[in-house]
């Protein structure tokens, strides 16, 4: 951790309009949950739908994308990353600091609201609220690391990230069983299922596969991002 890098990153991320944009995610989740809680119906399946599909399946990857790329891709795009890199500072420290900021932000804007939404919808029954909260914690961390890496390796990080989250995980994963094995969302579900002990959650990947994969993606993304950042090339505008 480098406190100066963290400070610059937080201000860049939460300052200006992006901070407000991030608030949309918890606001949307809580609003939908409040509406659903007021309605009558099969509460368990409604909770699984909202927390599993809307939250873990859609909002968390999008938030992870905005935050993961926001902590580094914007600086690389506008060139201000030069001021961080032209310093005798190990690159892995820059990356891990930015990752901590990204994970912290994702947790604050996604995991905390998930817990509230879960309690609102279904109380503490069946451990659903806690299960999904833990799932959002681990999936949020993995998304942050993966999208931070994308921000370092490609100028089109947002497009690539959307491609992964929406096309691969949501679309392909819906129709092709094998694709679900390589899906952060499914790994998160596996964690939620085992924490809640509730089969209603349903996951395509066993916990024994999900946890190592979550760890590998998070750690490998961070290592790779550090290596790539150390070799970051500036191209002339001329």
């Amino acid at each position, binding site marked *: 951790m480098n406190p100066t890098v963290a400070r610059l990153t937080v201000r860049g991320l939460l300052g200006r309009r992006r901070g407000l944009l991030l608030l949309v995610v918890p606001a949307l989740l809580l609003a939908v949950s409040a509406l659903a809680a007021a309605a009558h119906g099969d509460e368990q399946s409604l909770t699984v739908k909202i927390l599993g599909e809307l939250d873990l399946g859609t909002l968390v990857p999008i938030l992870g994308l905005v935050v993961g790329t926001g902590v580094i891709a914007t600086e690389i795009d506008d*060139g201000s990353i030069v001021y961080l890199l032209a310093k005798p500072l190990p690159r892995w420290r820059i990356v891990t600091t930015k990752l901590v900021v990204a994970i912290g932000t994702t947790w604050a804007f996604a995991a905390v609201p998930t817990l509230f939404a879960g309690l609102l919808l279904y109380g503490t029954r069946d451990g659903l609220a806690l299960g999904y909260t833990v799932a959002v914690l681990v999936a949020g961390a993995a998304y942050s690391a993966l999208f931070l890496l994308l921000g370092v390796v490609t100028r089109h990080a947002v497009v690539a990230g959307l491609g992964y989250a929406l096309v691969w995980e949501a679309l392909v994963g819906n129709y092709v069983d094998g694709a679900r094995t390589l899906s952060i969302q499914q790994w998160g579900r596996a964690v939620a299922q085992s924490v809640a002990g509730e089969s209603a959650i349903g996951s395509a990947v066993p916990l024994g596969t999900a946890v190592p994969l979550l760890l590998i993606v998070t750690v490998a993304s961070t290592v790779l991002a550090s290596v790539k950042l150390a070799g970051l090339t500036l191209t002339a505008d001329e």
Partner: protein
Amino acid sequence: MATITIDTVSRWFGNVVAVNDVTMAIGPGITGLLGPNGAGKSTLIHMMSGFLAPSSGSVALDGTPIWRNQQVYRQIGLVPERESMYDHLTGWEFVLANAELHGLAHPGAAARRALDLVEMAEAKDRRTGTYSKGMKQRVKMASALVHDPSVLLLDEPFNGMDPRQRLHLMDLLRRFGADGRTVLFSSHILEEVEQLARHIEVVVAGRHAASGDFRRIRRLMTDRPHRYLVRSSDDRRLAAALIADGSTAGIEVDGRERALRVQAVNFQGFTTLLPRVAREAGIRLYTVSPADESLESVFSYLVSA
């Protein structure tokens, strides 16, 4: 005392060669990197500042390779060409952050000293996003100077500066050069470079075209044959009268342009000769315009020389 050595360096992007087999050493004092836009100046500075790997050859600071070596930044201060610099921070916060990132023992004192040096102490509490181009340039300078580096690299530092800011920055750089620091700045404007640089390196189309003090470069540029386009009341008679004098090397009658293309050997001689000859022969001059005064043609002459 620090020296950057560029040894047989080439850099290509795909099949475009940006820098072609360049060898030069940048030592203490002020060096100007002169060349037209797109000549490869920025590419060279990116390699000297560790933001680009040479495709072949080596770039080193006092014998240590610069690429993938973060420790060089203890000695190097970089003023990039791009303007973005955390617009939401104030000048003070920005320079202070740079001091902290360097791990300085007293970042506050270092930031204050650097801001004083560039005379930005007064505006330090404004957000950098509100600064003028010249002010941004000065704050960027402060951020590069905050750790008291022995090498200062500046990419087109005078771009967009008004004359007063230009003089101020020149003054500042002169002081650094006089301190025995290695200062390198790039520019496409000869006058800027010769006002400031003790030593000039000229790059054109990725190649190292010339090297020397400003007198040598200036001589290379003014001694070249000058070409003029001349229109008069009687082109052929004027051509005959001009070719009789030694200042003229060749004349072509351009029928389509209805003008003379004159190649002069001696710039000074020709400019006094032409009106005199015209007057004596009773010919009226309608147009006299230099045909190749653009910097690019001067540079291309240097390259072929």
